[in-house]
C-alpha cells in the first residue's frame, strides 16, 4: 500500500511538470496553430537563465520568479520575432520545421554557453522534508503541484475575463474573422509565445529544483507530448489533466511493469490514444472540406 502511495506521489510530481510544459505547448498551438517543438528547449533555456540570475544575485524563490519570468518572457518575444514572425503565412509544416531547427540551435547554444556538466540548482527553495500523512515530500515537489494549479487557474481567468484572452480565443476559433473584427493577430501570436515562455520558466526552474539542471532537460519537452496529445493539443485544462495522467501512468508502470517503462509508457499511451481518438481526449474535431 505504501509502495502504491509513494508511486502516486512521484507520479503526481512528474505529472505536474508535464502539465506545466504541456500548457506552454497548448497555448502556442491554440493561438498560432503551430506545434512548438522547441518548447522543451525553451524550458531548458529559461531554467538556465534563472540559474544564472540566482547565482548572480543570490535570490530566494519568490524574488527569483519575479525577475526570471519577465526576462524569460522577453526572450520568448525575441525568439518569436526572429524565428517565427517572418514565417507568417507559410504552410504550417514549414513553421513547425523552423521550431525543430530552433530547438537544435538552442540545445547547442546552451551547452556552448553553460557547459555540459549538470548543476545543482535549488531555485532558492528550502530542502527540509515535509510529511503529508506518511508520504514525505520536498517543498519543491509541493510547489510544483501548486504551481500547476495556479497556472491553470490564472490561464483560465485570463482566457475568460481578459480582453487579450478573449482575443486569443477569437484568433484560435477563426483567424480571418478575428482579423476582420480588429484583433491584431500577429500581436496575439507574440503574446502566446510570451506567456508560454513565462510558463516555461516556472516549469524549468521547478524541474531543476526537483531534479537537476542538465543540458538534457529539453527531453522533458518531448516527454510532455503525450500529455498535450492526451489533452487534445488546444485545451489548457486538458494539457494539465493529461500531464497528471501521464505522470501517474509512467510512475505506476515503472513500479509494476518493469524497469525503464517510465521512459516510454507515455509514448505507448499516445500511440494508443491516437489510434482510437486521433484528435485527443479533449480536443475539438476538425471537419475537412475539399
Amino acid at each position, binding site marked *: 500500500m505504501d509502495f502504491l502511495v509513494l508511486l502516486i506521489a512521484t507520479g503526481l510530481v512528474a505529472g505536474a511538470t508535464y502539465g506545466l510544459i504541456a500548457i506552454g505547448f497548448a497555448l502556442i498551438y491554440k493561438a498560432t496553430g503551430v506545434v512548438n517543438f522547441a518548447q522543451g528547449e525553451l524550458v531548458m533555456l529559461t531554467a538556465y537563465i534563472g540559474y544564472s540570475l540566482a547565482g548572480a544575485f543570490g535570490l530566494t524563490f519568490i524574488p527569483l520568479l519575479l525577475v526570471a519570468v519577465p526576462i524569460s518572457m522577453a526572450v520568448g518575444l525575441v525568439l518569436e520575432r526572429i524565428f517565427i514572425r517572418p514565417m507568417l503565412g507559410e504552410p504550417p509544416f514549414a513553421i513547425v520545421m523552423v521550431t525543430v531547427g530552433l530547438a537544435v540551435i538552442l540545445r*547547442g547554444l546552451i*551547452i556552448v554557453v553553460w557547459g555540459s556538466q549538470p548543476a545543482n540548482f535549488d531555485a532558492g527553495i528550502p530542502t527540509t522534508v515535509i510529511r503529508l500523512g506518511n508520504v514525505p515530500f520536498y517543498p519543491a515537489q509541493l510547489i510544483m503541484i501548486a504551481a500547476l494549479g495556479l497556472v491553470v487557474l490564472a490561464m483560465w481567468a485570463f482566457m475568460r475575463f481578459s480582453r487579450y484572452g478573449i482575443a486569443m480565443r477569437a484568433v484560435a476559433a477563426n483567424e480571418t474573422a478575428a482579423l476582420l473584427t480588429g484583433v491584431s493577430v500577429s500581436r496575439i501570436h507574440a503574446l502566446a509565445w510570451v506567456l508560454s515562455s513565462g510558463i516555461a520558466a516556472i516549469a524549468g526552474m521547478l524541474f531543476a529544483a526537483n531534479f537537476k539542471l542538465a543540458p538534457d532537460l529539453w527531453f522533458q519537452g518531448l516527454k510532455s507530448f503525450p500529455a498535450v496529445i492526451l489533452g487534445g493539443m488546444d485545451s489548457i485544462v486538458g494539457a494539465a489533466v493529461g500531464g497528471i495522467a501521464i505522470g501517474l501512468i509512467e510512475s505506476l508502470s515503472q513500479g509494476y511493469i518493469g524497469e525503464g517503462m517510465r521512459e516510454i509508457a507515455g509514448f505507448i499511451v499516445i500511440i494508443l490514444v491516437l489510434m482510437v481518438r486521433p484528435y485527443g481526449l479533449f480536443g475539438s474535431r476538425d471537419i475537412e472540406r475539399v
Partner: protein
Amino acid sequence: MRTGHLKTSPGQLVALSDSPAVWAWVGALAVGLILLPYLVGNYMLTLVVSAMAAVIGAVALNMLTGQTGLISLGQSGFLAVGAYANAILLSDYGLPVWLTLPAAGLTATGISLIVGVPSLRLKGLYLAITTLAFSFIISHIILYSEGLTHGPNGIFVKGARLFGYDVQRGWPLYYLALALTAGTILAALNLTRTRIGRAWIAIRDHDIAARAMGIDLVRYKLLAFAVSSFFVGIAGALMSLQLRFVNVDVFGLILSIEALAMIILGGMGSVAGAVLGAIFLSFLPEVLRIGFSLVTDPNSTFYTNYVYEIRGIAYGLVIVVFLRFKPDGLVGMWRDAKKYWSNWPLAY
C-alpha cells in the same frame, strides 16, 4: 531555354531524361565515382561512404515526407532497426552479407508496417509525434532485449565478406556503398514516374481529393512507409558496416532531424534535392572543422570540445535559413540559375 518538346513515341514520355547533355554529365560522374578510390586518400573515402549512407537515407525519407507528405521524425528508429538487423545477422548468426543487407531492409519494412497502421488515421503533426514516439520505443526495446541485441553493450560488426573481399573498409566498402546508392537513386527516380509515385504526390497535395479520385489511401500510405523504410534499413545496415560497431546511442533523435534538414536543404519532394542536401550536410562538419581551424588559433579546443553542439547548431541554422529564404532548396536555386542563364541577357 529549350523549346519544342516534341515526343514521337510513348517511350520518350517516360524516359528519365531526354537531354544528351544530362546523360553525358551522368556518365562523367559515374566514371569519376568509379575512379575515386584511385584519386583520393582513405580519409576522404570514409567521408564519401558516410555521405552515401546519408544519401540513401535522405532519398528514402524523401519518398515518405517529400513525395507522400507523411512527416516522419522516426528516421533514427528505422536506421537503428536496419543497423541492428544487419549486425545481429552478420555477427551472431554468421550469415553472408549479400543476405543480411536485404534482410536488414526487410526487417525495417516489417516494423514500418506496425508504425504505418496508426499513421493511416493521422496526419501532419500527429504523425510526426507518433513516429517520434516510435523511435523512442524502438531504442528502448533495443536497450532492454539483451538476449537479442546485447542491450547497452552494443554489437561489433564483423565478418562481412563479398566475393572474398572484406567490405567493411577501404575500396570494397566504397564500391558496395556506390552500388547501393546508385540502386536506391535509380529506384527512387523510377518509382516517381509510376502510378505509385503519382499516387503518392496526389496524397501529399490533398489526401481527400486523392481518395475521391480512386487512390486507395491505406494501400499507398502503407506502401510509402514500406518502401521508404526498406531503403532506410539498408542505409542503417551500411552505417553498421562502416562503423563496425552499433550501439543505441549512435541512433539519437539528431539523426532524424539531420535527415529532415537534408531534404529541406535540397528541396522537398525532389530526388536530386535529397541527394544534394545529403551530400552538402554530410560534408558540412568537415567544412566547419576546416573553417574553425582557419579562424581560431591552432591551440584552441573550442571546436573539438563542442563538435556535436556546433554540428547541431549548423543543422538548425540550415533548416531555419532555407525554410525562410529558399523554401525550394538547392534544387530550386539550381532551377533559377539555369533559367537566368538560358534567358541571359534578357532575363525577366
